[in-house]
Structures are given as structure tokens and as C-alpha cells.
């Protein structure tokens, strides 16, 4: 084990690209002025704000005036759901989402349920794909919102967003997608996909933390979530986080320019990693769709062992991975996503998520699998479940 760290937890958060930091720096100590100010120190901030908005809009084929900067994916999700609920409560009180959404969606839905809203949590199949027929059947006259994530943060499955958008449009229901994981990683077009609202977060695509955005289609009249000053065309109060916004914009620009090659490279490495694991380690299960999958996501369950101990041993070899969502790892409950795709609890506990970046190399992957083989063997030797299993085999 050298000093090198192999960071394979890019779905949790990413390293900020040096060009992004570079772009941000002048806005801390030089062009620090308020973007709403009259004087020219503020004008530079304002200009930068406009440029960043264009860079962000381009990722999803939106108009600049449809982009509203927030503090991250969670705020965007909260805003979309709560403000839609408030706006539409005269029309109805029914929301449709899925069982595999991020907690920023699920816990917000639970909150809304306490306020009197009804929420249908759609099942997913064993690959994590939402059932379109179930979606259609769930629609009621009182349905005011469909919120389905673009791609799942744990198992990498990409949902049939265009089809869902078409169904929503056909029924005149607003459609929000939590695209935090997909934004800048795979092609998205809000018009072609009939997306009315879309959440994204800067730190998932090598941009800074603490900045995100909500796309709101022109004409969708949801109100503020954070009330106060007139920033973001009066829809999101708070002094603009200019360095964050500039960094987010720059990261988006790079993401757009490099998307094709990144997707190709990461898909190749991803498939190689999955193939080696399946070949060299027995009793494993690859989770998520093999086809409609984020280019950088590998999620696999190793039977008879538990995730955290695997993570610590990997960490000791300089490899960073995660077991279930990073946000839930405080609780170490088995992931709701893995349960939703039908895994039993004890198998769900043995999950490992490795998510690549544009910097990941074939050597990184090879080293990771070599160590993983040893770690899995070691933990299984310690496992009473493995002992029972082997005894039963005999």
C-alpha cells in the first residue's frame, strides 16, 4: 500500500477540477462585489452570473432564465416538491414518486404526507426500473406531480425519463426529475423529455459543494422556497454565491465538452471492473441495469459479509468506496434501494458501490480488484454466515 488514494466514490462527491478552482478564485478576493449592486465591482459578479447560467442551461438544453441557483441537490428537491404541493393544492393532493428516490425526495414526501398530501411510491423491478404501467395506473384526477429520479445514486440505473415525461404531459401533470446523478454525465434535454423541473448539484460533476440549481420550465409558477431578497428573479433569496456559481458553470462547460469521451472511457472501465469481479469472486450479484446504467457506476453485493468492514479494509489499501448511499451511511441500515430491487436484508448489507471518474485508470481498477479478492476472502473466513453456508454445501 502506497500513499496513493484510489477514489472510487464519485457518486458521493467529486474532486473539484483545478480549472474550476482557478475560475472561482478571483471572486473571493477581487470581484467579491454583490451582483445586485450598482457599482462596477458588482458588475463583474453579475457578468459571471450570466455566463454561468448559460453554461448550466446548456447541459440540459434549457433557457438561461429557467435556471435558478440553489445551495445543492437537496434544496432543489425540497423546493420542487414543497412549492409544487403549495401551488397545486387546490387542484389535488396526490404525488407520485418511486421507492428508490434519494432521501431528499423521500423524506420531503413524508413531510408532505404529514401535511395531508398523499404519495404513491412506485415499485421498481429487479434492475431498479420504474414500471410505466404502474405509473399510468397510479394517476388520479388529483395527481399534481410526478417526481422520478433520472438515474439512481446507488445502483446507477437510468430511468425511462422520456417515457415518463410523455405520460406526465399527456395527463397534464407536472414532472420533476432529480437528476443530481445524471446531470453532466449523460445527455439530457428538458424539451425532448418533457421535464418541467430538474434538480442538479455542483459537487457531483467535479464542481464545488454547496451549489446546485433547480430548472423550472417557463410558465411553471411555483413560488419561492427561501423568501427574502429579490435574487434569482425574486424566486430564491440570498446573496448569490458567486464563486460557487462560477465554479458550477465552469464544471458544466467542461462536462458538456468532455461528455462523449468520458462516457466511452468510463463505460469501458466500468464493464471491465464488473467482469473481473464476476469472474474472480464467487457468490456475488451485480445490482442495477446492465444496459441503462450510469457510465461510472458499479454496484455489487458480496454474500456473507457486511459492507462497512469491507469499506474499512479497502480504505486501508487506499481505496475509497461506499456501501449504500453516502448520506445514509451514518445509520448503516441496509439501503432502501437495494431492498426495493428485492434483495434480502443480509445480502443488501454486503453491498459495495464503486463509482469512477474521468481520472480513474485501468491500473486503479486492477489494483482494486486484486485487493478486493483478498478482502472478501478474509471477511468470509470470519463470517458465521459463510461457515453455515459451506457446512450446508457439504
Amino acid at each position, binding site marked *: 500500500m502506497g500513499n496513493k488514494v484510489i477514489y472510487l466514490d464519485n457518486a458521493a462527491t467529486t474532486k473539484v477540477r483545478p480549472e474550476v478552482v482557478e475560475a472561482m478564485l478571483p471572486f473571493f478576493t477581487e470581484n467579491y462585489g454583490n451582483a445586485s449592486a450598482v457599482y462596477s465591482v458588482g458588475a463583474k459578479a453579475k457578468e459571471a452570473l450570466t455566463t454561468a447560467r448559460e453554461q448550466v442551461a446548456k447541459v440540459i438544453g434549457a433557457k438561461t432564465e429557467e435556471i435558478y441557483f440553489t445551495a445543492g441537490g437537496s434544496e432543489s428537491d425540497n423546493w420542487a416538491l414543497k412549492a409544487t404541493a403549495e401551488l397545486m393544492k387546490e387542484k389535488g393532493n396526490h404525488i407520485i414518486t418511486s421507492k428508490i428516490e434519494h432521501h431528499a425526495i423521500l423524506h420531503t414526501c413524508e413531510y408532505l404526507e404529514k401535511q395531508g398530501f398523499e404519495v404513491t411510491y412506485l415499485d421498481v423491478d429487479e434492475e431498479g426500473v420504474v414500471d410505466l404501467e404502474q405509473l399510468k395506473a397510479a394517476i388520479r384526477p388529483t395527481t399534481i406531480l410526478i417526481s422520478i429520479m433520472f438515474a439512481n445514486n446507488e445502483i446507477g440505473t437510468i430511468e425511462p425519463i422520456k417515457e415518463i415525461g410523455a405520460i406526465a404531459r399527456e395527463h397534464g401533470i407536472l414532472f420533476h426529475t432529480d437528476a443530481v446523478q445524471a446531470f453532466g454525465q449523460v445527455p439530457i434535454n428538458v424539451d425532448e423529455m418533457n421535464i418541467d423541473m430538474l434538480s442538479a448539484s455542483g459537487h457531483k460533476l467535479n464542481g464545488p459543494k454547496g451549489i446546485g440549481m433547480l430548472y423550472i420550465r417557463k410558465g411553471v409558477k411555483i413560488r419561492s422556497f427561501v423568501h427574502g431578497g429579490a435574487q434569482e428573479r425574486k424566486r430564491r433569496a440570498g446573496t448569490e454565491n458567486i464563486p460557487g456559481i462560477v465554479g458550477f458553470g465552469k464544471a458544466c462547460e467542461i462536462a458538456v465538452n468532455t461528455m462523449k469521451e468520458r462516457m466511452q472511457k468510463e463505460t469501458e472501465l466500468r464493464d471491465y471492473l464488473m467482469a473481473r469481479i464476476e469472474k474472480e469472486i464467487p457468490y456475488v450479484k451485480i445490482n442495477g441495469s446492465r444496459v441503462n446504467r450510469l457510465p461510472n457506476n458499479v454496484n455489487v453485493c458480496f454474500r456473507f459479509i457486511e459492507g462497512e468492514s469491507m469499506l474499512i479494509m479497502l480504505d486501508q489499501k487506499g481505496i475509497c468506496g461506499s456501501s449504500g448511499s453516502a448520506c445514509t451511511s451514518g445509520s448503516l441500515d441496509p439501503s432502501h434501494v437495494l431492498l426495493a430491487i428485492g434483495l434480502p436484508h443480509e445480502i443488501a448489507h454486503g453491498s459495495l458501490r464503486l463509482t469512477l471518474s474521468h481520472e480513474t485508470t485501468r491500473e486503479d481498477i486492477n489494483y482494486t480488484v486484486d485487493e478486493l479478492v483478498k478482502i472478501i476472502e478474509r471477511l468470509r473466513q470470519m463470517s458465521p454466515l459463510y*461457515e453455515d453456508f459451506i457446512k450446508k454445501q457439504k
Partner: protein
Amino acid sequence: MYSEKVMDHFQNPRNVGEIENASGVGTVGNAKCGDIMRMYLDIDDNGVIRDCKFKTFGCGAAVATSSMATELVMGKTIQQALEVTNKAVMEALDGLPPVKVHCSLLAEEAIHAALWDYAQKHGIKIEGLEKPKNDISEGEEEEDY
């Protein structure tokens, strides 16, 4: 997150393995919660624990507490082993993060379960030992906002 002692016992767990024809074996926890500990005891005729081994499915703290528990009961009499509480295990490990305290309870319970099994097999009653619960949970949940 973990103390150096915990990390040491996780990385170099003492007494991992099985004991063939053990005097007592106890398995506690459940796979649903992600923790299973199995404790093997070899107890001699004077009621002294001659050997002790474990297998654990669980997090770093689960492995470390099991390992430490085996060290703490090794060479002890049954009555002394009964006094190895989860507090003792935690202290010996220089503490555990609050969310991992239940692992030490599991370790205590695993010792009890193995002793219970020993008592059952030998048709004796051990003073102060109750039938172990199948499942351990901490009880005091963190507040939910």
C-alpha cells in the same frame, strides 16, 4: 471514527475461528440488522474458559468487540466471564462511537449465549445468567427531525 485499539482489533482480530466440539456456542444478532456474532467456548472441568473463538458478520466495531470479548474471557472462570459487560469491552477498546455501542452489547450477549448453551448442555444453572434474547437493539434511538 474508531479508536486505534478498535482498528487494531479489527485489522488483527484475535481468536477468529471455530472450536470443534466446543463446550458452548452462542450466536446472537441477526442478518437483517447486519450483525451476527458467534462465540465458541472451551470450558474445563473447573469451570475455567480454556479457549474461546469467534466468527462475526458485521461492521468494524462488531469484529473488534468480538475480538476483545474473546480476550477478556480467556482464562476466566464462568463467574468472572459473566462480569465482562459491554462497558468493560468498550473501555478495553478505548471507547466506541455512539452509533456503535450496540456492538458491545452484542459481544456481551454472545458470551452469555455461549455460556447458556454450555449450561443447557450440562444441565446446570449459572447464577445470574438469563436466557439471552435473540436480538439486541439499543433502545435509545437518536431523535428524528
